[in-house]
């Protein structure tokens, strides 16, 4: 089976694709990239790498590119980036008709966990949620800071979140995020506690696998650099309820804060997180389970794993021919040198 996957960045802002690729070592893998500088392209994980058009160009551009790539007999795609997921989810039936399998939630499910709708959604899950206001102007931001006070979280709808301690900082964050990612933005109450996360996979009815963790160290962007596996019953039950309540199909990451008593839902990412390989290394190979579900194979639930295991990222180096880089830029595809 040949599987294409995206999210090949592997810097201090890692994307999930490399963790997914490492979990699917037994398959023929095709890398889908948006930038020739993504380190994952050159890690020897893919037999071929293609440059993709940006999702903002729409489905027709995407479809044309996929049809070109289909000559490599791709059987399935696992999209791993927030910015491309709306397109994949919206057109999943059309993609299926092209002969390419996906394993994604419905558009309705996807929209239910949108950051701007989490307040209502968290009520359904029986968890708390920090007060959040949508902002589309500086006026909105000022109003939000009056209502929520300081410190305050200023967040993009897809990417980036910064803590601001005063109005000047909040305005700086507002421009920093909106210039890069557009609107709307969100202003959110700061919850003090410990951030805990759960990566899981739903089959449309129930939770079939998952692992909980707490970040120990992060990069400047707040991305996990080291972590410890945890077993938190409230986090597990909330993740389970999330899948069962809306019939979630696909991967997800449940991000929460715990004050030791209550769980506060911060957000639910509709994809594998960049640390998905931690779960794989603990014996819960969620990408493999996803592929099995795509192929209508029976999947044994994998909800148990060892706690107190430590996940550590580290920097690795490699050397490749510069002509690979040049070829990817000019021809938009390269033959990889799969070495794992």
């Amino acid at each position: 089976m040949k599987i294409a996957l995206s999210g090949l960045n592997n810097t201090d802002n890692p994307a999930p694709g490399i963790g997914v690729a490492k979990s699917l070592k037994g398959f023929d893998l095709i890398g889908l990239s948006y930038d020739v500088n993504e380190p994952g392209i050159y890690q020897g994980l893919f037999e071929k790498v293609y440059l993709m058009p940006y999702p903002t160009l729409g489905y027709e551009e995407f479809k044309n590119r996929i049809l070109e790539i289909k000559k490599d007999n791709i059987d399935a795609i696992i999209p791993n980036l927030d910015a491309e997921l709306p397109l994949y989810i919206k057109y999943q039936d059309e993609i299926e008709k092209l002969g390419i399998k996906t394993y994604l939630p419905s558009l309705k499910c996807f929209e239910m966990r949108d950051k701007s709708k989490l307040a209502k959604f968290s009520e359904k899950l029986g968890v708390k949620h920090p007060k959040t206001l949508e902002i589309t102007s500086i006026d909105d931001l000022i109003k939000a800071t009056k209502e929520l006070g300081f410190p305050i979280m200023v967040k993009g709808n897809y990417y980036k979140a910064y803590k601001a301690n005063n109005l000047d900082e909040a305005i700086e964050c507002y421009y920093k995020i909106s210039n890069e990612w557009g609107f709307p933005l969100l202003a959110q109450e700061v919850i003090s506690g410990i951030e805990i996360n759960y990566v899981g996979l739903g089959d449309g009815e129930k939770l079939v696998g998952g692992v909980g963790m707490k970040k120990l160290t992060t990069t400047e962007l707040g991305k996990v650099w080291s972590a410890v596996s945890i077993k938190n019953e409230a986090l597990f039950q909330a993740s389970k309820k999330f899948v069962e309540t809306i019939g979630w199909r696909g991967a997800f990451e449940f991000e929460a804060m715990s004050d030791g008593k209550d769980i506060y839902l911060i957000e639910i990412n509709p994809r594998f997180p960049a640390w998905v390989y931690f779960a794989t290394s603990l014996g819960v190979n969620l990408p493999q389970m996803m592929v099995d579900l795509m192929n209508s194979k029976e999947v044994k639930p994998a909800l148990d794993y060892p706690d107190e295991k430590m996940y550590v990222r580290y920097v690795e180096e490699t050397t490749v021919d510069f002509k690979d880089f040049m070829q990817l830029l000019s021809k938009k595809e390269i033959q990889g040198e799969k070495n794992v």
Partner: protein
Amino acid sequence: MLLHELIIDENNMGFIPSLGTSYQLNTTAREIINLIKQNKSKDEIAKIIAEEKGATFRDVYIDVEDFFQKLKIYGLIQ
């Protein structure tokens, strides 16, 4: 109370399995935590430690009180 979840290993490192938080303790901190887990009051704990260390109850009580405040700050007791 999260403190009841705290597992302390042979090197006096405490760990909360549900939250993944860890704490470095000394032997006295370990003893106080064990006494709290046995539902001893602050007075009882100060008395036990004072007898063991040959210190005055008043001095030990101040330190025990300070330690309780730290446990509260870390969210381990209410």
